[in-house]
């Protein structure tokens, strides 16, 4: 773990901010968007966070935090110069090597890993569509970054206060034709469940970034287990085939003791 001072804080929307830190670049050459870091908030908690920005020269990374509980609220409201610990990058990110049109679909702070993945996909020349859903206008984020990736960017809000009024999955259904794209998705599990259904309906392959309670982050404790897969090491990004073989997906997760509990919807 590297304990680093927060270099800069950027507000992304009403409930989310990005914290920038400058880790030693040596651990980062193999980084793939979709990978995550474990973030230590001294005295509070250690939580998994996707990487949402990679700046080269000088090297730094950003993590975009949505305040929803004790750890994320304190992280989001730390002053510049505060120290946090970072370990990682960990896990398996998005495979962006395909050739078809790439549709990035995200809900809430799930935009964090999708925006970075799409920037990378653009660099390697892929055609991109963005579908990004939020609860309401004040929660919209990364609109400018998405816009720079592609004019084919569509924002939805659940309450209709901005962009398309409705669920981002409704946008997806309008966007897809048979077999003509690949999907990458990050957001609430129920949203991703719908994404996978729509994907299979249109014969389109998907990769989704899953969330489970993480403790070790490195594949030993099994706290993040979903049907025998450890999200921290085997994922967080899984393919549609892999997820289809996970009965627990969309239905249950494990609490801190390892007990099965039915999935309560994530607050993002």
């Amino acid at each position: 773990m590297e304990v680093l001072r927060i270099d800069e804080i950027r507000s992304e929307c009403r409930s989310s901010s990005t914290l920038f830190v400058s880790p030693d670049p040596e651990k980062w050459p193999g980084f793939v968007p979709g990978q995550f870091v474990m973030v230590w908030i001294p005295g509070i908690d250690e939580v998994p966070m996707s990487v949402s920005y990679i700046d080269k020269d000088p090297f730094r990374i950003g993590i975009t935090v949505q305040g929803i509980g004790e750890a994320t609220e304190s992280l989001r409201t730390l002053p510049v110069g505060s120290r946090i610990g970072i370990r990682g990058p960990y896990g398996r990110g998005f495979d962006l090597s395909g050739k078809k049109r790439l549709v990035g679909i995200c809900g809430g702070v799930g935009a964090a890993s999708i925006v970075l993945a799409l920037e990378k996909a653009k660099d390697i020349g892929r055609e991109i569509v963005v579908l990004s859903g939020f609860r309401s206008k004040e929660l919209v984020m990364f609109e400018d970054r998405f816009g720079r990736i592609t004019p084919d960017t569509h924002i939805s809000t659940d309450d209709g206060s901005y962009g398309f009024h409705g669920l981002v999955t409704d946008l997806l259904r309008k966007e897809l034709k048979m077999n003509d794209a690949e999907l990458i998705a990050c957001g609430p599990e129920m949203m991703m469940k719908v994404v996978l259904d729509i994907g299979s309906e249109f014969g389109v392959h998907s990769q989704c970034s899953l969330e489970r309670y993480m403790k070790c982050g490195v594949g030993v404790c099994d706290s993040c287990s979903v049907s025998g897969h450890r999200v921290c090491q085997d994922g967080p990004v899984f393919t549609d085939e892999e997820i289809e073989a996970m009965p627990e997906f969309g239905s249950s997760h494990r609490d801190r003791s390892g007990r099965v509990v039915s999935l309560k919807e994530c607050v993002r």
Partner: protein
Amino acid sequence: MAPERSDPTLDVEISGIRFPNPLLLASGIADETGLSMAKAVERGAGGVVTKSLSLDLREGHRNPVVVDLQNGMINAMGLPNPGASHYIREIEEYRRHTSGKNPIIASVFGSTIEGYAECARTIAASGVDAIELNGSCPNAEGLGLEFGQDPDVISDLIKAVRSAVSIPVFFKLTPMCNDIVKLASACQDAGADAVVAINTMKSMKIDIRTGRPVLTNRFGGLSGPAIKPVGVRCTYEIASRLDIPVISVGGISNWEDAVEYIMAGASALQIGTAVAWGNLDVFSRIRSGISGFMRAEGYSSLEEMRGIALEVKRWRS
């Protein structure tokens, strides 16, 4: 040069339990669910040990619970588990997803001797193949280590569990003691079927920028390559002085480590931390490494290698 032979056999038997190969998933590692453990078997493990179970649910310590070092790991999970009776469903799921050839050992602990025995009884009912008593966790106060450092208490513990269950009972030892042979000897005398050595060593990491202990629990257990030389020594000491089989664990990351432990006298091996760096592929990687080595060196069974370091006349040139 030793002659090349084909197909060295890797199967082992410990008090009547047969394992197709000696590499078991260690307790507390990727074993929260039945499917996870089944996956370890699918990826090459000869058997698995469940996470340590107690009668009642425990959430474990708050994050951070691990420190990831270059040569090991410090963990203070704090023995999280849903309770033995809830965990039975995981055993059942494991059975559904494996062929029946890969034994599953239930690790149990408690805060009293009766607690251990009761927990063992509860989980034994699910049909596990053996019980491993965790008397050596250094990061959960009052739960195990205090018992596992005292030969008399170890003896009482084993006897209590022995009379609670009819399956084999193993005892997992701590290296944090004056003399591990004394502890192992208490196990043997009390009728344990095997000892498991070693658990982690109480350790700590302080972040110098903030001056804080990193782990919420402050202390944790050191595992991984850093402790291997201690584990090999413990195995060797026990194997050279006692008859009880030793199941070795501690820092096994590659086949050379595995062979070293077998030569020190290990009957079977458990793998923990290496799963973090090599994922579950460590099992097949180590398994085929051992086979390749045995073929190249002309060993046809693990028995031929086991404990050769203990006896001068078995040394090779």
